[in-house]
């Protein structure tokens, strides 16, 4: 008996998860699939974690509209899903007189795109607000609605709320092809079998071109993976609390000096187009490039306090902008194509994709409504996803109360980030169980500190094995093939 759904969402990144969560508000059966062992393993896993104000995208593009519509939705989203989000504002920093005109251009975009709260600041004013900035600063665009979030937390919370509201999530499930009936899609083939559905939504990110090509849509569309590399600093030693963009170039928004909600200063990303959609390696050339760029904004940085480096891939598309007279070929695709029925097609959702995600989800619902779908709100829809305790963020007094209630929160497993056994166990048994090391890391922030998991890894392997009732040899970093251990050591003869 084949499973039948009303909607199948392909890809559990932030866009797919927020779409699934939005659909879960209404009656209908939703299936969310991802080829990886956890949600949030692609583009959403490695980006700059910024909720953009909307002054950057070219006016009159879909990208600009999604950005500006998406940004104000974040407060409600954060409130309902209980993930940390902060409107810290951001600066686009001009260095030298030559870069000042670029600020005016962005200010013009901001006005056309309808971005509130933007202002041009003088060089001395920027220096007053951020003491680490280069003395050569000539001015900045200040956008008060810029925000920072933790993309993992957002995506996990959205997916969890979707599952709470009845969405079926299938991991390790890779889309292979569509099942067609004439010009209508009636389901998908995966490595885990076939699934029938009235609608299929393509939010496959880096692989969205493959998915749409299988449907016979936009054969000319191509995703070019654009690699972005990053440095992360120890928060004990480097504290730059502002979000600092350089002026943008043809390669994008440029290398930022910014901060995470966890308090770590980060540098990145560069933007280099590569061929391999799986190649998330950091490169020596790339790291040097970022370092040089970041030093233009903040000259006092030192590599001594770098605690991590990583790279992510953005799905750069070649979709033309639909607005007449706008010459732009990297616009978002969000459409119900005419040539096949039962298909919602998304493509090229690169930055500001994270910011746009809630607006994209709403756009998908609107398109489906236009296509004649009725959306009836479920009687038992629960928009609130409860947060779980985070020991590291608590006062000593609150920690005591928590440990009194459940002593497992008293055992610290990650010494740098103060993540406890109680938190790990809660994630292993959450609505979306975290069953790999990286899954636990992304949810709890364990292993992200200065020792980079050196202390916690053996302990987490142990806890995972115990809670899942398997051998430690089966515990993986990121899914099958990434086992930590190979075999037991020799037995000692007594």
């Amino acid at each position, binding site marked *: 008996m084949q499973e039948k759904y009303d909607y199948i969402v392909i890809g559990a990144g932030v866009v797919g998860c927020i779409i699934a969560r939005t659909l879960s508000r209404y009656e209908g059966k939703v299936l969310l699939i991802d080829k990886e062992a956890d949600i949030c393993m692609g583009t959403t896993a490695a980006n700059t974690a910024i909720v953009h104000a909307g002054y950057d995208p070219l006016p009159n593009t879909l990208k600009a509209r999604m950005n500006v519509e998406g940004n104000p939705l974040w407060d409600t989203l954060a409130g309902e899903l209980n993930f940390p989000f902060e409107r810290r504002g951001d600066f686009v920093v001009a260095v030298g007189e030559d870069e000042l005109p670029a600020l005016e251009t962005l200010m013009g975009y901001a006005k056309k795109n309808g971005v509130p709260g933007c202002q041009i600041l003088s060089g001395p004013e920027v220096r007053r607000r951020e003491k680490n900035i280069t003395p050569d600063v000539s001015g900045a665009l200040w956008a008060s609605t810029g925000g920072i979030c933790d993309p993992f937390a957002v995506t996990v919370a959205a997916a969890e709320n979707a599952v709470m509201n009845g969405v079926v999530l299938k991991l390790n499930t890779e889309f292979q092809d569509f099942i067609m009936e004439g010009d209508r899609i009636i389901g998908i083939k995966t490595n885990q079998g076939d699934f029938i559905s009235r609608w299929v939504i393509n939010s496959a990110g880096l692989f969205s071109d493959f998915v749409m090509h299988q449907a016979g849509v936009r054969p000319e569309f191509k995703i070019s993976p654009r690699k972005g590399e990053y440095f992360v600093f120890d928060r004990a030693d480097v504290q730059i609390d502002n979000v600092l963009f350089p002026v943008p170039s043809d390669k994008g928004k440029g290398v930022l000096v910014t901060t995470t909600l966890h308090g770590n200063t980060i540098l990145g990303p560069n933007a280099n187009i590569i061929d391999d959609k799986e190649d998330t390696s950091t490169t020596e050339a790339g790291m040097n490039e970022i370092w040089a760029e970041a030093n233009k904004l903040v000259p006092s940085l030192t590599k001594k306090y770098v605690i991590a480096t990583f790279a992510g891939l953005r799905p750069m598309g070649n979709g033309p902008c639909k607005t007449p007279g706008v010459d732009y070929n990297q616009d978002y695709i969000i459409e119900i194509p005419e040539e096949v029925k039962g298909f919602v097609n998304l493509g090229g959702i690169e930055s500001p994709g994270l910011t746009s995600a809630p607006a994209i989800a709403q756009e998908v619902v609107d398109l489906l409504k236009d296509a004649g779908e009725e959306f009836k709100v479920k009687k038992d829809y629960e928009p609130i996803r409860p947060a779980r305790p985070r020991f590291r963020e608590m006062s000593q007094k609150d920690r005591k109360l928590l440990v*009194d209630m459940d002593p497992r929160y008293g055992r610290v497993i990650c010494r*740098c980030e103060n993540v406890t056994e109680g938190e790990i166990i809660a994630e292993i048994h959450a609505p979306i169980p975290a069953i790999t090391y990286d899954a636990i890391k992304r949810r709890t922030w364990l292993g992200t500190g200065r020792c980079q998991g*050196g202390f916690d890894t053996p302990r987490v392997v142990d806890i995972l094995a115990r809670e899942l009732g398997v051998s430690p040899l089966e515990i993986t970093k990121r899914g099958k093939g990434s086992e930590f251990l190979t075999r037991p050591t020799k037995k000692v003869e007594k």
Partner: protein
Amino acid sequence: MIKKKIYDVVIIGSGPGGLAAAVAAKKEGAEDVLVIERDTELGGILLQCIHNGFGLEIFNEDLPGPSYAQRYIDEAHELGVESMLDTIVLEVTPGRKLFASSTKHGFVEIDARAIVLAMGCRERTRAMIQIPGMRPAGVYTAGTAQRFTNIEGKMPGERVVILGSGDIGLIMARRLTFEGAKVERVLEILPYLSGLTRNYVQCLQDFDIPLQFEHTVKFIHGKDRVEAVEIAQVDKNWNYVKGSEETIPCDTLLLSVGLIPENELSRQAGVRIDPITGGPYVDESRETNVPGIFAAGNVVHVYDLADWVTLAGYDAGKSAAKFAMALKAKESAHIPVKAGNNVHHVVPHTINKQNLTNDEIELQLRVVRPIEERVMIEVHDGENRIARKAARYARPGEMLTLVLKERHFADVEKADSLTVDVNPR
């Protein structure tokens, strides 16, 4: 279970430095000595160092790490050192209060008259030396691999490249070879060995494991698990020598690229850190800039022999005990003055016995309830009256006083505490 809220000496960490400090503190006369250890047994990293080479300096014997630790653990137990295991210290304040937590003991607050920081060090990671490439499973610091192998009894990999010629890396090259893994290569970016020559001879030479100086890892391959590393020779400025690249297939990369004193707790306590060593500035008694907080061992600077850490631990423990005892003597010189019957509060709160030779001492107090008749203000030590004074009435709005004079001082000196009552006559 934790029995006391105030300890003479609290030691954070039970490696060679912490154990020695505990033993020395006890021997120096500290009564209540507590060791807090985050692992489930005392001994720290010594427990995973199952190779020999420990004790040559102190015992003139060649012991494995756990045996070396056991000598101090036994001695600490005999001396009555208390311990809290599987417990992590979350914060140390400059006022020597500790917040710690564990599943067994819950969340606890402990006051210490003196503290010895003995948290040891942590290993430098891949990120700190910024090796480019993928981020698969199979990249471990040598110490983490050592824990997997020797404590958990599981192999971290089968075909191994080791970057760095630090002692743990050399030791692990031999250890994994014993277990049937193939150690393909040890690479050292410097033109000389980072670890001890004896470890090079006994761990690499004896097992024909090749060591290459002025070589490093240029790239890590493999999406899920390490598949290979690309290595290269470097010149004096650590630039890759063109054409020297070589790809070594392997499933594991171990890093033995240096140790860093672990001082996050120290910093919270206001301890000044030397940017060169990464450890606290200490004086010859091993005291930091924060009075009563001492530090010893790898938390101060990285040692190459555990024996030397032990010796440093002795110094710190002894100094901490002296500090704690002096503080205790000062504390016991103070007699608390308590508010008794119908007394709201008394100032001063304590009387320092050492000052009893001086002039008279005026006690100032307020009553809780008014008494509109003649009252008696009385000072007693719980059994015997020491001084008294009459008044026409007692009203909360009007402060009362009583003066202790030289003739009272002999009784005051014998008292454990003084209590002031205000009763109707």
